[in-house]
């Protein structure tokens, strides 16, 4: 396959993808994990990513687009380095999820799906993330933060800002 020689992904990820397509009875089953892992490395699903994934799976780019538009975690535009996802679904709502989202919005100066000008943070109001008994909760990239208050959220955001080297 031509992509083995020429790939936009890191050698590790390219090797992972080479293996991924062999794990299933049908190659296409690797599509959704492949898109998510590619997004993790590149930051978003650019036209180039979509083209290479389509080639690796052996389907049309339009088919890839049709699938990716269904899944809420997949995006075709860059997010912040740290994507702050605050749950406002019922269990979080009952314990201050809305206030937490608004606090993050004010603190970061951005709204739902916004990105800070320095590109460090983006913010999303998300549906249930499976932290209902430890509400309110947020995910920053893949990390869970639970039993949050506006004050503890500030500390969490400070830690991430430090990580970003600002």
């Amino acid at each position: 396959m031509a992509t083995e020689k020429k790939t936009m992904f890191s050698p590790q990820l390219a090797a992972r993808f080479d293996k991924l397509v062999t794990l299933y009875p049908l190659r296409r089953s690797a599509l959704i994990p492949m898109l998510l892992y590619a997004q993790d490395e590149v930051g978003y699903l650019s036209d180039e990513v979509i083209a290479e994934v389509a080639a690796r799976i052996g389907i049309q780019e339009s088919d890839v687009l049709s699938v990716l538009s269904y899944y809420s975690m997949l995006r075709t535009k860059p997010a912040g380095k740290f994507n702050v996802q605050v749950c406002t679904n019922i269990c979080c709502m009952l314990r201050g999820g809305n206030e937490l989202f608004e606090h993050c919005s004010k603190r970061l100066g951005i709204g739902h799906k916004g990105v800070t000008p320095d590109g460090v943070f983006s913010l999303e109001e998300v549906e249930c993330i499976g932290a209902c008994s430890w509400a309110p909760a947020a995910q920053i990239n893949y990390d869970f933060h639970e039993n949050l208050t506006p004050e503890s959220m500030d500390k969490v955001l400070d830690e991430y800002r430090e990580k970003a080297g600002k």
Partner: protein
Amino acid sequence: MAYLTTHPDVVPIVSSRFGKGATSIDKYLELDGYKATRKAIEMGSDAIIAEMKASNLRGRGGAGFPTGMKWSFVPKKSDKPKYILVNGDESEPATCKDRLIFEHDPHSVIEGVIIAGLAVGAKMGFIYLRGEYRYLLNIMERAIDDAYAKGFLGKNIFGSGIDFEAVSHTGAGAYEVGEESALMESLEGKRGIPRIRPPFPAVVGLYGGPTVINNAETLATVPYIIQMGGAEYAKIGTERNGGTRLFCLSGHLEKPGVYELPMGYNLKKMIYDVGGGIPGGKKLKAVVPGGSSTPVLRPDEIDIGMDFDQVGKAGSMLGSGGVVVLDETVCMVEFALRTMKFYQHESCGWCIPCREGTDWLTKSLTRLHAGGAVDKDIDNIRYLAENMLGRTFCPLGDAAAMPTIAFVQKFRKEFEDHLDGKGCPYHHSPAHEAVLA
């Protein structure tokens, strides 16, 4: 990070290895791990299914279908390969239990998959985790690799001459994919839209082959049943509702958390004793007993045993085990609206009653909450919801309609209090208004 909460009434079965380092395969073996699979290999298909039937284990995903019976529907002979599919897409609001299983006891899921495979003659299993659970996918992948390295997966498992492959798989954010037919579509690399049934997955499922689809907690329970015996497991619960389950207590409680309690445990006791009651001496207004899709119960309806039949008799459903407690400060219209906004967001749009119904209900509830509705609109909301029931390809439409009907039916007065320009009589912080807008 996700942990089990303790209480004297807790009966640890599926959680018995939690917090003991069982993610390490060596530790898991020390804790009698993989003994159930060895035993199941000796038992063979018919004996495994008989044991599962005797256990009265019912699906922990929400529908509560008897697991042994589900397995027995898979045809013995099939031209196409058979598959086991673990539903770890856990997305029903108020449900956060499978997370604990993947985090603390991933090998029990692998054992459950292998044993299900032995029961129905499948040679391959898939463990599907929701995309948000990346840290759990890493744990699951390591567990699978370790099981391969020990010869528990792959060719000739445990020297039995039987081959079994297992693959972990990630989703990328979609509630609808927790529905079994949409789950198969997603695993096949497509948009997660449901398939029409019949044919049922047990006959034509993944890649066209007969497929058993079970919730992660259901399959993680299987090795424990094989080891203790179906009859013993059944004794713990109530009639036709064997064993224990992980209940996720959330909302206005002193001690929210995930607790493993026997099936049939009293709901009132669950709230006031296990969950520690309602903070600040506030009064109870309502309980959602089994995840966001289950009809709400009033305080006078909660003196019931939490099993599929008793909650069903009370007019609701045991569902996925997510118990949401609402105190007197909650606006039921806002709660109904937030619930509907979720279903509107998650409707896949494939069939019209769900796509249009959730959208119109969101609009109607938004307008009503803001004071822009008249009395007739309350009936229209209920009428609209009732006309979604049973008219969609998959249960998402029902999941949106059922709670709405119950909210209107049981809390009509609160809906009326919003009418004719009055708007919401409850105090809302500006944050609520912003999110509802």
